[in-house]
């Protein structure tokens, strides 16, 4: 392992960091499958060709992210770990929504909410991380996640999206917000020590703060920017 990555970490800390990055690798690998759904949905909606292409590229981006996270996990584990496999894809059913609306809701859920929150999260991780391998990985991921979030905001701003569809999407926002909040609220029952932030594992209060700030400063103003006023 590089001395950069191992500095100031005891064995337990190193194992926790390796585990977290290995689980992130699984998350990234799984997200590649989500983007297959997003890309297919955008194509079915006859979205702008550039958006469909960006969503298709996101599939490869996420596969690459999975490999980078896995390599980082191996670095901290000091051995080769099993390669990440995608978790079963379980998308929200959005019962009662039309097929076209479901396509848009998947785009909004994945891009406007999750990828936007992920961008804010990675930005914060980068601010705190000092281990060079972590910084390199996070920089690479963040550059792509920004593009992935843009897919959603571009879709919502598109003139191809009717006023009626935008209103339908707005009606589902409380549920989309709840899904996003629940996912980002998942917590393992262990303490994250301050030393782990240097290795890309911020404390849970930091994650909470990032998620809340992303909602207040990115997501809600973002919906306002594309014509959906969110009243809290």
């Amino acid at each position, binding site marked *: 392992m590089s001395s950069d990555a191992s500095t100031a970490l005891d064995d337990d800390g190193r194992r926790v960091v390796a*585990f977290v990055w290995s689980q992130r690798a699984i998350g990234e690998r799984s997200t590649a499958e989500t983007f297959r759904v997003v890309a297919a949905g955008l194509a079915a909606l006859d979205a*702008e060709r550039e958006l469909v292409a960006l969503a298709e590229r996101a599939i490869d981006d996420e596969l690459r992210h999975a490999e980078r996270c896995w390599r980082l996990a191996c670095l901290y584990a000091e051995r080769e770990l099993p390669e990440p496999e995608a978790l079963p894809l379980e998308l929200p059913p*959005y019962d009662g929504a039309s097929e076209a609306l479901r396509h848009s809701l998947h785009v909004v859920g994945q891009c406007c*909410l999750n990828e936007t929150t992920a961008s804010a999260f*990675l930005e914060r991780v980068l601010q705190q991380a000092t281990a060079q391998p972590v910084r390199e990985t996070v920089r690479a991921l963040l550059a792509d996640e920004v593009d992935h979030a843009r897919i959603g905001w571009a879709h919502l701003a598109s003139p191809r999206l009717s006023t009626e569809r935008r209103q339908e999407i707005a009606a589902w926002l409380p549920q989309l917000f*709840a899904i996003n909040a629940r996912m980002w609220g998942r917590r393992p029952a262990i303490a994250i020590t301050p030393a782990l932030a240097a290795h890309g594992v911020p404390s849970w209060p930091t994650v909470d703060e990032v998620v809340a700030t992303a909602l207040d*400063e990115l997501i809600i103003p973002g919906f306002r920017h594309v014509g959906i006023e*969110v*009243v*809290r």
Partner: protein
Amino acid sequence: MKKTRLFHALVVVGASMTSGAIAATATVSVAMISGCDDDTSSAFYPDIGVPPIDLSVPHDLSSPDDLTSRD
């Protein structure tokens, strides 16, 4: 509302890819975000930062093998 550099990079640039800012067309209240009825408990949009990590019970962190186990 403070507009951050990230807001510009994500939202402003993203929206401009298709049309840019548009007039308000919808309003929604999310005052009950934390308490809203959510029947999508299996819903899943995974990505960085929201991994299905559960380091709590099943993982013996003294064992390197457990680095790869989950759930």
